[in-house]
């Protein structure tokens, strides 16, 4: 008898372990939605799911939050390979390209359109364009953020610096950053910096566009970087010049001790560049008087698209239910619920223009800046290899931006040659990843 009990006990243990985490209702459609979400955001998604459940009690949506983008992508690629991918997932605009290449996505646009659930005019165009591939809307955007300037109102006031104007220029931005960079204890080192920023292609790109340059030769079917122009190099060098020649950005050693977000929150930097997501973190900080302003303009105004979208796995067995959830989440109710988290700029115009987003009781006071910036938004290419290109070139940009003082001295008179050096480094780092897209993309110009 004992011989039989042990295997039975083992089987019972395995069954118990297998049961952990499962709780599907037998008669309802079960959808799985995976997204990168901090705890506050996760709560907003759960409220969204609960609201959807009241409309569609037959559909159960399981929310799977993931803490970081890298793990989100790892989990998605693994589960797609194993045939167990979530029905729906939210993905950032710059990271979705790799899923196009593996052909695992069911185009959401035609599904919504055929069901009469999609009116293009109701949404902002840049994110729709960003998630369109081969003429089809592949994933349905839920937000449309952009890079803006976060500025410390108290510091601007304390040092008598004019608040940023809606149409401020590189010169005014430079002057403000310079006026706000202060040595407060007389040790010949700045204690307050005018600006702090993470150097990456997504941060530099708007300055390239503002200077009249381009990132790639063709945004829809890029074959090479188009950074070898005076305009593009001028844009690439703008922030580095602010750091080296004007000294308004902290040097590397200080950045290692404290990143731009923490420095801005502490009041050690008067300005920083970030997307809408940063607003939610700042709302939690007591006593910080802050607001947002558009990026300064040069030859033209430009910012870079930050957006996330709902993508539908081709292998999902519940495409109709998933489509209905997407329609709900990007509808009036869903968008308003998510806006309350403070993390997103709604992609639906009516909600973005409403108090759900422009809440006068919540900072930033100039939340409309995010909406006013939308017409100037441009994007990086949505090719399968773009994310890998970014991960390769961002360390190169950081190293170039914060190279040693000795190198800085040697390159003080380099002028634009220093910018061309960065272009060389970017092209080398990207290697052969920037290749023509497969047939199906259009050939509009990036400029």
């Amino acid at each position, binding site marked *: 008898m004992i011989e039989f009990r042990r295997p039975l006990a083992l089987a019972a243990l395995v069954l118990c372990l297998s049961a*952990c985490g499962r709780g599907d209702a037998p008669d309802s459609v079960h959808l799985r939605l995976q997204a990168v979400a901090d*705890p506050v955001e996760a709560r907003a998604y759960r409220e969204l799911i609960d609201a959807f459940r009241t409309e569609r009690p037959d559909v159960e949506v399981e*929310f799977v939050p*993931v*803490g970081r983008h890298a793990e989100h992508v*790892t989990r998605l690629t693994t589960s797609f390979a194993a*045939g167990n991918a979530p029905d729906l997932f939210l993905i950032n605009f710059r990271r979705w390209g790799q899923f196009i290449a593996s052909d695992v996505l069911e185009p959401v646009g035609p599904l919504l359109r055929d069901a009469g659930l999609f009116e293009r005019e109701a949404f902002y165009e840049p994110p729709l364009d960003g998630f369109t591939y081969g003429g089809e809307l592949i994933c349905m955007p839920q937000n449309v953020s952009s890079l803006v300037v976060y500025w410390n109102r108290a510091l601007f006031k304390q040092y008598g610096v004019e608040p940023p104007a809606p149409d401020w220029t590189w010169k005014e931005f430079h002057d403000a950053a310079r006026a706000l960079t202060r040595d407060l204890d007389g040790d010949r080192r700045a204690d307050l910096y005018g600006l702090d920023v993470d150097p990456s292609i997504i941060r530099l790109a708007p300055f390239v566009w503002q200077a009249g340059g381009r990132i790639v030769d063709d945004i829809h079917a890029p074959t090479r970087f188009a950074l070898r122009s005076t305009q593009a190099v001028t844009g690439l060098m703008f922030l580095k010049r602010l750091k080296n020649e004007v000294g308004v950005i902290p040097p590397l050693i200080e950045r290692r*001790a404290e990143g731009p977000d923490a420095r801005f929150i502490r009041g050690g930097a008067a300005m920083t560049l970030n997307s809408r997501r*940063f607003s939610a*973190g700042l709302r939690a900080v007591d006593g910080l008087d802050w607001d947002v302003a558009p990026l300064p303009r040069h030859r033209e105004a430009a910012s870079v698209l930050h957006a996330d979208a709902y993508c539908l796995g081709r292998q999902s067995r519940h495409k109709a239910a998933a489509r209905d959830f997407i329609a709900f989440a990007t509808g009036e109710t869903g968008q308003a619920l998510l806006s309350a988290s403070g993390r997103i700029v709604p992609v639906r115009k009516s909600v973005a223009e409403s108090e759900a987003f422009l809440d006068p009781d919540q900072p930033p006071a100039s939340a409309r800046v995010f909406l006013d910036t939308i017409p100037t938004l441009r994007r990086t290419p949505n090719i399968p290899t773009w994310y890998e290109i970014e991960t390769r070139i961002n360390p190169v940009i950081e190293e170039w931006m914060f190279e040693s003082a000795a190198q800085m001295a040697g390159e003080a008179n380099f002028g634009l040659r220093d910018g061309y050096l960065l272009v060389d480094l970017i092209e080398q780092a990207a290697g052969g990843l920037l290749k023509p897209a497969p047939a199906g993309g259009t050939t509009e110009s990036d400029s």
Partner: protein
Amino acid sequence: MGVALSFIRGCGLTLVGCVFVVPLALLFVASLHAPGSVPVPGDLWPASPGTRAYQAVFAHVPMAGAMLNSLVLVALFVPTAIVAGSLGGLGIRLMSPAWQLACVTLLVGAASVPYAAIWLPRFMAFQALGFGGSWVPLWAPALMGGHPLLVLLFYLAARGIPMSQLEAARLESAGWLRIWWRVALPQMRPAVAAAALLATAWCWSSFTEPLLYLHSERSQTAPLMLHALELLGASNWSVLMAASMLLAAPVVLILLIVPFSLNRSVGG
């Protein structure tokens, strides 16, 4: 002379211990900052220390449930790994020298395989078996001893048992399981303690496997919650530090307890 040497040894160990305590102390101090503030470089002690960050951890994520899940997983994983690993180690010890060499080579080879090279086939295998979303894939490695290095550790410990003892027990008509339980395991206590320590640390801090296999938030483990908090950003670093402290505390406790038993077992 012996007392002096013992004193010097004690001082040296304390000094080494202090070096490892410094990061933990910094972690603890950082966790005392209020949420919504950021630590100022150079200013270690917060102006108004408190436990609000710890409260925020439990308010933001279901950390209590996740820690309980992690504890249950450790409670399942570690004993299984010790039983399987010690049986494996003893089994190898009982083989001929040529087979012992082959097994040790195999174990070292298995320990050298990068995890990235096996996670996809393993994931697909468990999905095919219908264990996706469950704890089985997290527990299953324990059936193989937890990790090749643990089996190797038990094998090395088993080598210290005289073969004559094992053969004598066999002559007394003891079965192999009885020999393992009565003869081998008592003599492998230091290895058991070391293996338990290592298996607990690996299982408790495991991140990639729970990330890949666990879908439901109810079944998620504490490291996943820690990563969820990371996204709160710079204004909530103290919350992240508090969660890190909560995760580090049990391991530190075990680190304090196990060496004593290990020391006693060795006879130090």
